């Protein structure tokens, strides 16, 4: 059975030979046109005059489209109908599309776009948190507030109270493949769109809206993206809509891709946050109550900012039982790019907030931060209740080592032992069980908490205590270079918080020759979703993977899909494919059973055969027999996530099906004269449930960690006083390179089945590992703290400059 095997990515053979096609690689008809936006050069105001004569007369230009060319300007917003394709005369940010150039080449379109003469009446741009608060520039009617218990009383009664603030920068996605779309006009006004999008249904919906067509008039296909990371959940809308309206206007195919600078300037990034906190705690470090205020810079339009800000609130507890908590979230509207989804979707920012609080508390008490973290953990999971223990866990995987032969030599700290929760860790500083209850600040019971065991296993395998002592000894004698070490946990909620999105469909065909065509609503952006789901399909039919053809995501095959986001791709689509496969399998079994002298339920699909009581036939024979019996070999599958119930306004309910867990220990060294810093070693233990494909999951963990570490260290977005993003290319925006790695990097899976009934008891793994990168920020804070007596108040990103400032604060 292929489920749980560390098989290569389904398209690896194509990728390594350059044969895998992205949108810009698809051969286009000879008359294809190319598009570029002309963008604003001011951040706020109105356009007083726009002379496009030079644009229209530029070589190669076929058409120019501006607001006046539309009866209604097409809208590109995924949420609030507040993103006109081109400006209606008001300018909301520097980089906003003002007009659209349609030309016979990409270069001609870009050249022409620069020939416009635009005059503006500038107004004062709202750029900072202070600007927005002063101007009352907000989304929704006021701040959202989630509360648990009486925070005021908890703070008043606490032994210690501390205040603090952390600034957390945004992050550019820097998907290697920039945004791209291609529209091909069809008969009767219909449109086919190829898009580099995580959300084909959204593209279909928005293109149909722009063209005045029912959704059935638009078909969207996505074979793959060259990276998404959330940046292609909504930000591809503009290009697809632009291509579609230009294709409608000209009757010719139209293609658009942003060059990298335009991509930086036009599209949204991770939300930057400021988090203020007041925490009350005891002498043992146990938190009595915490009051968070999160300020979220959302940019000019609503986009996905509300659920992003919600998820930040939902992760303000991370792994810690907060007896009393208040989380206040201000969603600020600013004249900057509209901040959007980015791996973690607000969760990472909320989590940085509480990790900062625990770091601060430990510093005040002079205690080991890990000790303070553990004393505040949620109580351990109890054994799973019987109703969740009956799921489909083939092969009795529980606790058995997985087939991960090719992972040998990775230096992994594979952790063996009995499965399930409940074991208390037994280190010298084990705290007593946490205070009563296991309820999050939003009223959800944490039933599956496994971080006690994971933390214990990781801290032992990486020798946290010994290395912490060594770092302290080093710091005591070294005047310039200071070391820091931190072990931080991750508890990440899995499910879309907009509950209705937790659904998925699949379409599976078995052909007469026994080959299988599989389709579902998820999109492939490198995460290996297609491979994992194909492994599910092959496992259900008991056949080899070579029989399963994975096809491009297509709104004509599976309708009404949700974005491939929220780490949910495999959970949702894997289940939908399983349902479809099982339906066909049951039909085949009913036809074949009499020939095997067995009941249909007794027929086993395995090794390319159907078997029952010693009788057997090949899968092909059974399929052929089913066809001859005039029984359908095609089925749809549908899945909806169970147990969810959530009121986002009240902040009460169960927004998540389950939590995914992880822990990382990172050691760093800083140069206190320059702020320069290095990661020396990182050890990770991550929970992917019973991994569907350990190799792909470890790839997600390594990549997620590095991306998270980049976010919190070198990746700095700088807007100038006029609202111009000055870091708009890789020359000025520094993402991690091959040489920026931990000297030692150990990654291991916590291979235990999910207690909830997910696909083969696996867990989602897309976003959670990004937050393992928080261990780097906390290790840097630890190193800065070693340079002086005061708390360093390290902000993110912890660039060399910021580390130097923090060293100064520690010494003040």
């Amino acid at each position, binding site marked *: 059975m292929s489920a749980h095997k560390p098989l290569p*990515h389904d398209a690896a053979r194509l*990728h*390594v030979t350059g044969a895998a096609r992205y949108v810009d690689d698809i051969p286009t008809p000879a008359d294809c046109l190319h598009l570029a936006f002309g963008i604003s050069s001011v951040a706020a105001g109105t356009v007083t005059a726009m002379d496009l004569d030079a644009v229209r007369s530029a070589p190669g230009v076929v058409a120019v489209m501006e607001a006046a060319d539309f009866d209604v300007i097409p809208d590109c917003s995924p949420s609030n109908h507040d993103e006109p394709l081109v400006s209606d005369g008001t300018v909301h940010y520097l980089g906003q599309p003002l007009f659209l150039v349609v030309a016979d080449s990409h270069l001609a379109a870009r050249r022409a776009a620069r020939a416009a003469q635009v005059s503006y009446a500038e107004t004062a741009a709202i750029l900072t948190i202070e600007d927005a608060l002063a101007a009352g520039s907000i989304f929704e009617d006021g701040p959202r507030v989630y509360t648990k218990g009486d925070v005021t009383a908890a703070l008043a009664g606490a032994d210690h109270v501390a205040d603090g603030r952390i600034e957390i920068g945004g992050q550019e996605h820097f998907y*290697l493949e920039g945004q791209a779309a291609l529209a091909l006009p069809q008969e009767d006004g219909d449109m086919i769109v190829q898009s580099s999008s995580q959300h084909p249904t959204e593209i279909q919906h928005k293109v149909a809206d722009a063209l005045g067509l029912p959704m059935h008039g638009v078909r969207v296909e996505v074979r793959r993206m060259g*990276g*998404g990371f959330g940046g292609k959940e909504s930000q591809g809308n503009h290009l697809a809509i632009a291509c579609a309206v230009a294709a409608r206007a000209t009757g010719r195919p139209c293609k658009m891709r942003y060059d990298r600078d335009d991509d930086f300037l036009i599209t949204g990034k991770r939300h930057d946050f400021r988090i203020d906190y007041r925490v009350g705690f005891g002498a043992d470090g146990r938190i009595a109550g915490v009051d968070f205020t999160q300020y979220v810079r959302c940019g000019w339009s609503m986009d996905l900012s509300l659920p992003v800000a919600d998820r930040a609130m939902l992760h303000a507890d991370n792994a810690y039982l907060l007896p009393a908590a208040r989380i206040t979230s201000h969603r600020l509207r600013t004249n900057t790019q509209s901040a959007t989804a980015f791996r973690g979707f607000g969760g990472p920012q909320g989590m940085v907030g509480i990790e900062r609080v625990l770091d601060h508390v430990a510093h005040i008490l002079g205690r080991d931060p890990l000790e303070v973290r553990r004393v505040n953990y949620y109580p351990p999971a109890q054994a799973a209740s019987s109703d969740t223990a009956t799921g489909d866990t083939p092969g009795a995987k529980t606790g058995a080592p997985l087939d991960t032969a090719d992972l040998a030599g990775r230096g992994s700290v594979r952790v063996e032992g009995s499965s399930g929760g409940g074991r208390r860790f037994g280190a010298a500083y084990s705290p007593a069980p946490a205070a009563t209850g296991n309820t999050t600040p939003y009223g959800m019971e944490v039933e599956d908490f496994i971080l006690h065991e994971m933390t214990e296993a990781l801290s032992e395998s990486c020798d946290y205590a010994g290395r912490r002592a060594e770092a302290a000894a080093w710091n005591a004698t070294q005047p310039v270079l200071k070391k820091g070490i931190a072990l931080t946990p991750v508890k990440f909620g899995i499910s879309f918080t907009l509950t209705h999105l937790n659904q998925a469909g699949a379409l599976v065909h078995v052909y007469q020759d026994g080959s299988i065509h599989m389709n579902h609503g998820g999109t492939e952006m490198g995460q290996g979703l297609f491979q994992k789901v194909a492994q599910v399909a092959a496992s259900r039919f008991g056949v080899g993977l070579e029989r399963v053809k994975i096809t491009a995501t297509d709104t004509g095959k599976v309708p009404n899909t949700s974005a491939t986001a929220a780490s949910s791709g495999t959970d949702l689509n894997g289940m939908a494919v399983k349902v479809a496969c099982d339906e066909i399998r049951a039909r085949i079994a009913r036809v074949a059973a009499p020939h095997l002298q067995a009941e249909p339920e007794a027929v086993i699909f395995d090794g390319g055969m159907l078997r029952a009581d010693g009788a057997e036939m090949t899968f092909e024979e059974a399929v052929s027999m089913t066809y001859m019996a005039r029984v359908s070999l095609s089925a749809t599958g549908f899945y909806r996530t169970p147990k969810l119930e959530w009121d986002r306004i009240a902040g009460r309910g169960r927004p998540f099906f389950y939590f995914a867990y992880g822990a990382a220990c990172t050691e760093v060294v800083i140069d206190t004269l320059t702020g320069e810093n290095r990661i020396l070693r990182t050890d990770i233990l991550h929970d992917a449930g019973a991994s569907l494909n350990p190799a792909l999951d470890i790839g997600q963990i390594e990549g997620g960690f590095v991306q998270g570490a980049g976010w919190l260290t070198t990746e700095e977005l700088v807007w100038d006083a006029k609202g111009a993003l000055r870091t708009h290319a890789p020359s000025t925006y520094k993402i991690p390179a091959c040489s920026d790695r931990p000297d030692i990097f150990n990654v291991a899976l916590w291979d235990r089945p999910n207690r909830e009934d997910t696909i083969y008891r696996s867990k989602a793994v897309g976003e959670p590992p990004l937050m393992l990168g928080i261990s780097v920020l906390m290790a840097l804070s630890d190193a800065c703290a070693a340079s002086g007596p005061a708390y360093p108040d390290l902000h993110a990103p912890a660039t060399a400059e910021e580390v130097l400032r923090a060293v100064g604060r520690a010494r003040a």
Partner: protein
Amino acid sequence: MTKQIVEMMVNGETREVMVEPRELLIYVLREQLRLTGPHVGCETSHCGACTVEINGKSVKSCTMFAVQAQGAEITTIEGLGSPDGLHVLQESFKEHHGLQCGYCTPGMITRAHRLLQENPNPTEEEVRFGMAGNICRCTGYQNIVKSILAAAAEINSASEAAQ
């Protein structure tokens, strides 16, 4: 603008193209020769997605004019192997999971190919610094480095066996 004829040897074949003087090599490869393995990532020579081999050197083809390639010998990812006949490096990237979204992969492998010509037996450190001009946003590089080291070991053991 007046177009010029440029003749170059691409993946072992002589190719003649008509180009504008300011046309970049990457576009000529992708659009005229339909070699879409090299990708456009940043267009400023930072990301390495467009890396090809020219006269025995790794070159980012987004910052070279096509006219500068007059008479040059060029190898793109398509010249190293095909889906039915993978080069050792290609096989290694596939088997060791040295890719996720795959967009950087052709440039990575092309660069790694040249790196192993320059240094057939590199240490991990040398691989990491030798590959530092190629950005990957997905993998965290661990498996890329592993793929290159494994390929180097295989090439070396094959050449030892041949001797």
